């Protein structure tokens, strides 16, 4: 089991050329099992392939949930001797996610916490990775995450987002290319790997997790139990379809957000759009304190 996970990790990186020797890789580490396993495996890879690794943890400020995982992320990075940067919603945007949820309810924006969290977290990770001079940004997305994302974007008929899924995504200027070296490994196997290696990982569930994501996850897990290998086949089928999606995805011109200067295809980036809806207008220009 341990060797199998490691072999598939290395295969994913080498087959898809996710990391080149000498590159600086930022790894997003929440403290959860997937990101901690990703960090450990990348640490070993970078030792052998002579690339640099830096860990970034996003503190959304979710009370009763993030504090413990933050400590676990820090402890694992220290154990591996890896530089570790923590960037917070509070510092970057002026409010924790808990605070934003209260503002959103007051303003009746109708958006669920996952929307804010997902958009803002990706934005802050990209900004931090760029400030740290990273060539790649690695995340711990596993097979379950990929299968869920494929199904969710299909249900939403979101071709653009569907097209961006894959082992790596190299977007335009201002974005650090993202890589997902665990994407072919089932979530349960990642968990088993962490447990068998005696890793300290956070197994808590985000208090905001709900809605269609959870329903799709539960559906896929039931499907997998009754029809093993379903998740993997969803991924494989998507990979066959993906090259044909390009013609249907609308092109766009990259600009700079009028508010914060971050890359966007619109007048305002999605982050500023969401923040302005709840009257948060100031974004921290520099996240990394050196």
């Amino acid at each position: 089991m341990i060797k199998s996970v490691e072999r598939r990790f290395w295969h994913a990186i080498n087959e898809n050329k996710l990391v080149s020797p000498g590159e600086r890789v930022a790894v997003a580490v929440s403290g959860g099992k997937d990101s901690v396993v990703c960090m450990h495996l990348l640490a070993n890879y970078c030792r052998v392939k002579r690339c640099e690794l830096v860990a970034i943890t996003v503190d959304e400020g979710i009370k009763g949930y993030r504090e413990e995982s933050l400590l676990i992320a820090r402890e694992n990075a220290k154990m591996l001797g890896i530089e570790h940067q923590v960037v917070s919603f509070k510092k970057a945007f002026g409010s924790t996610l808990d605070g934003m949820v209260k503002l959103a309810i007051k303003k009746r924006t109708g958006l669920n916490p996952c929307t804010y969290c997902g958009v803002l977290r990706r934005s802050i990770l990209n900004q931090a990775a760029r400030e740290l001079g990273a060539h790649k940004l690695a995340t711990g997305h596993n097979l379950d995450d990929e299968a869920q994302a494929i199904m969710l974007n299909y249900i939403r008929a979101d071709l653009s987002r569907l097209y961006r899924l894959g082992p790596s995504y190299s977007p335009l200027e201002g974005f650090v290319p993202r890589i997902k070296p665990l994407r072919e490994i089932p979530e349960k196997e990642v968990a088993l790997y962490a447990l068998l290696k005696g890793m300290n990982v956070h197994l808590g569930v985000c208090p905001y997790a709900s809605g269609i994501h959870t329903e799709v996850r539960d559906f896929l897990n039931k499907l997998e139990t009754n029809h093993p290998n379903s998740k993997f086949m969803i991924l494989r089928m998507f990979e066959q379809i993906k090259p044909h999606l390009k013609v249907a995805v609308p092109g766009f011109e990259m600009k700079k957000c009028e508010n914060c200067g971050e890359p966007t295809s619109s007048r305002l980036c999605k982050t500023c759009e969401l923040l302005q809806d709840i009257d948060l207008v100031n974004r921290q220009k520099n996240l990394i304190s050196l």
Partner: protein
Amino acid sequence: MSEIEVRVKIVGQKSPRRLKVATRTTIADLLKKLDQNRETVVVSLNGKIVPEEERLAAGDLVEILPVVTGG
């Protein structure tokens, strides 16, 4: 059919509970009985992580750890 008694604990809950199951019951059978999806949990038997095909014996301690949490 004869039965055996095992102890079952879902990690996070207070203490193990005793459960009677048929002899030759596997961990997979037990998970079904408890309405636990095997895709979302890791099971240890007497302190050791084992495959779900493992058969239970009288007195066994089965610990069920939910692991599908996002991370």
